[in-house]
């Protein structure tokens, strides 16, 4: 049992903390306030972070990346999220790439896509699952072949012709390369009917639809992706045709990473909330006394800190288990629980500000960002999915 960090982990943590303090946090509220959802991203921040290695942190070393382990990933995501949750996600969203590429892509695919990704500081990635007809059936696939993924690909010689839509796709409007779940068998149940494709932004027949106007995580944009006879070469298929869902339970699973990502990011938001409340309690006064002298404030801060430290302990344990390739329900559990914790902690922080008579835009932003977890990490379907694994 050892909770200490090695030098490399500590160095990444410190680098992320500094970047969060000096670059992300100072820009956080200004980006959040931008009304046009397509204009919230700041490419200069992406570039600065990329140069520090945050965009390419997980790429294997032989391709010029840093190949940081899961523990380091968790540390970096939490530190960046302490500065701005959506900015942290904008970097970590690129990390799934490294997981997929190192585990599932062919050498040719690695050459064609990893090299430009490494070379361009504004090259960001996306993955498309959800469609206008919904996302939950893709998470807990029912047997009905009509349920789930409707974006259709039909083989045409060496190419596939794609028709359909993806929606609510992170980086959908700004990414340069996408991983897409596409239905390649219209008659089979979802788990045997979907193929994973690599689709570059400049694919003919692909265009970006609307950019979604989210109440939180505004820096991190989501868009609609429209495919009208879009032509993708067969060489861009990852793994087996109709094999996307089989893959996704193994090491190549983006979800495995995604669970940890949402939990680690939530931890950073909780850290920011605790920091805000503790600072306020130590400095603001009411009736001539410091807030921290009031029992109701003490009780709330106790709850915030206890939940945050429990989440930190759980996140770091799951990161360690990932590094050991020890698969369990823990990644799912920590992601689900992160939803409850980030929201309670963010709301208590806003509450402490409110009862001090302070309408704090930062505190409010954390509440809005935290609500994003409801559908990404903690809705009933996601909880049941993890539970079914426990109950198997």
């Amino acid at each position, binding site marked *: 049992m050892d909770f200490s960090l090695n030098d490399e982990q500590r160095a990444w943590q410190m680098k992320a903390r500094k970047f969060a303090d000096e670059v992300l946090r100072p820009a956080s509220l200004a980006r959040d306030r931008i*009304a046009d959802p397509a204009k919230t991203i700041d490419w200069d921040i992406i570039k600065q972070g990329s140069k520090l290695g945050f965009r390419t942190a997980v790429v294997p070393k032989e391709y010029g990346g840093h190949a940081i382990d899961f523990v380091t990933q968790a540390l970096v995501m939490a530190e960046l999220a302490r500065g701005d949750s959506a900015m942290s996600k904008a970097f970590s969203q690129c990390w799934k790439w490294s997981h997929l590429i190192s585990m599932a892509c062919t050498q040719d695919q690695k050459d064609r896509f990893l090299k430009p990704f490494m070379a361009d500081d504004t090259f960001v990635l996306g993955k498309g699952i959800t469609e206008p007809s919904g996302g939950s059936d893709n998470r807990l696939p029912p047997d009905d072949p009509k349920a789930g993924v409707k974006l259709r690909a039909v083989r045409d010689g060496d190419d596939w012709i794609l028709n359909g839509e993806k929606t609510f796709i992170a980086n959908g409007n700004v990414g340069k390369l996408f991983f897409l779940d596409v239905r390649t068998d219209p008659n089979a149940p979802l788990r045997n009917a979907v193929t994973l494709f690599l689709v570059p932004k400049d694919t003919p027949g692909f265009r970006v639809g609307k950019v979604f*106007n989210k109440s939180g995580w505004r820096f991190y944009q989501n868009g609609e992706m429209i495919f009208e006879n879009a032509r993708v070469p067969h060489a861009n298929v990852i793994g087996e045709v109709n094999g996307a869902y089989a893959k996704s339970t193994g090491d190549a699973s983006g979800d495995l990473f995604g669970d940890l990502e949402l939990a680690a990011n939530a931890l950073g938001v909780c850290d920011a909330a605790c920091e805000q409340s503790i600072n306020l309690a130590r400095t603001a006064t009411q009736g001539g006394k410091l807030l921290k002298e009031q029992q109701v404030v003490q009780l709330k801060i106790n709850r915030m800190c206890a939940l945050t430290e429990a989440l930190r302990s759980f996140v770091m344990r799951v990161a360690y288990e990932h590094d050991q390739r020890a698969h369990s329900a823990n990644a799912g559990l920590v992601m689900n629980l992160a939803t409850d914790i980030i929201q309670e902690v963010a709301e208590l922080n806003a509450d402490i500000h409110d009862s001090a008579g302070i309408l704090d*835009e930062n505190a409010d932003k954390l509440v809005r960002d935290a609500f994003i977890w409801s559908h990404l990490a903690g809705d009933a379907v996601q909880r049941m999915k993890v539970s079914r694994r426990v109950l198997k």
Partner: protein
Amino acid sequence: MYSLHLSAEQIEFRDMIRDFVAQEVKPVAIKPERLEPLEQPLLTDLLEKASSMGLRTMALSEDKGGAGADALTSCIVAEELAVGDVDIAAVLAETSALSHILFDKLMSPAQRERLLPAFASDDRFHLAYADREPETDTRIGVAYHQKRAEGRIATKATRASNGDWVLNGTKSGVPNAPVAKLFIVSAEAEVDGKSGPHLFIVPAGVPSLTVRAMPQAKRAFHGIGGAVTLSDCHVPADNLIKGDAALLDTVRLHDMAINLGIGRAAYEAALEYSGIRVQGGKCIIEHQATATRLADIVISLDVARNTVWRAAYASDHPDAVSDRSLPDLPLAAMARVFTSTAVYRAAKDAAELFGAMGVMRDMPLQKYIHDAFICLRSGDGNADAKLRIAETLAGIRPA
């Protein structure tokens, strides 16, 4: 005798407003551009239309041109309006409540004669009570269960040589300020040789009274609000109000009713959606997980409404407390703590059923959460309200 029957008029009124909301308010209010929690101009046309239906003067007594609605009826109306648009509901409820206190109770006959006709005949005539000041701390906080100093009012009213009152000071967070044509302003003044807090009637539209609208992001209440600055603002001697100022200190019951309306809007959207949205081959309402969530929502809203109505009844019928039909507890404060907590939770639960759509600014669910959040933080907040309630339990009654 205990009875939960509403009167035929109350039900009719409710139906009328429900209809108005469904036909006229909702189609405008759920337009994507109105759902952002940013600056949103008040829907003045609809506000005027609602005024012309009598909702602006509803609480004013019938002999003065109103409908003489009691607090319960006012709550029913405010909730229904808020299902459509919280801001319209809030502005109307505020003017209506003030019109009753002001014209029916506080004003002298002469004042009323002078000011009522303009108010009664103008659908755009709103009222505002300018009391809170930027530096005022009304919270109990550290002073819980201790003697508290009397609140001091920084705004001053002095006598001019012509007998006019001259007001100087700044009020902040005044509901209705940007649309009010008449203000009731609290100020420190010497009357009959004694200094103390007094109320003054101050008409809008004079250069010595300036209103600065609050950014909506800064509001802790619905409707529209602003800061009011009085700079050597002269009002006639007769604009001093001699009635009992404490009448204005009652808890704003209509705030809770508006809060209920927000919850209702979220619940109705969730219920409808859960019968449309298919998952695993079934409407989501057919799944236990959704069922349980909807049941939680409907229970908490229904229980909250019952609590708000009781507080409204108690405010209309203090004899029900004195004859021990109702407990001698701060029912309105208790209703507010319960309602604001329950509705915020309900709005979040409702939004969760919408998946990613629950967080989109052009969709209504995030607005309901935001609106409920404003109620949660309104006034001095629930933490402080609980301290007040506990003081009552301990036998410490506010004066």
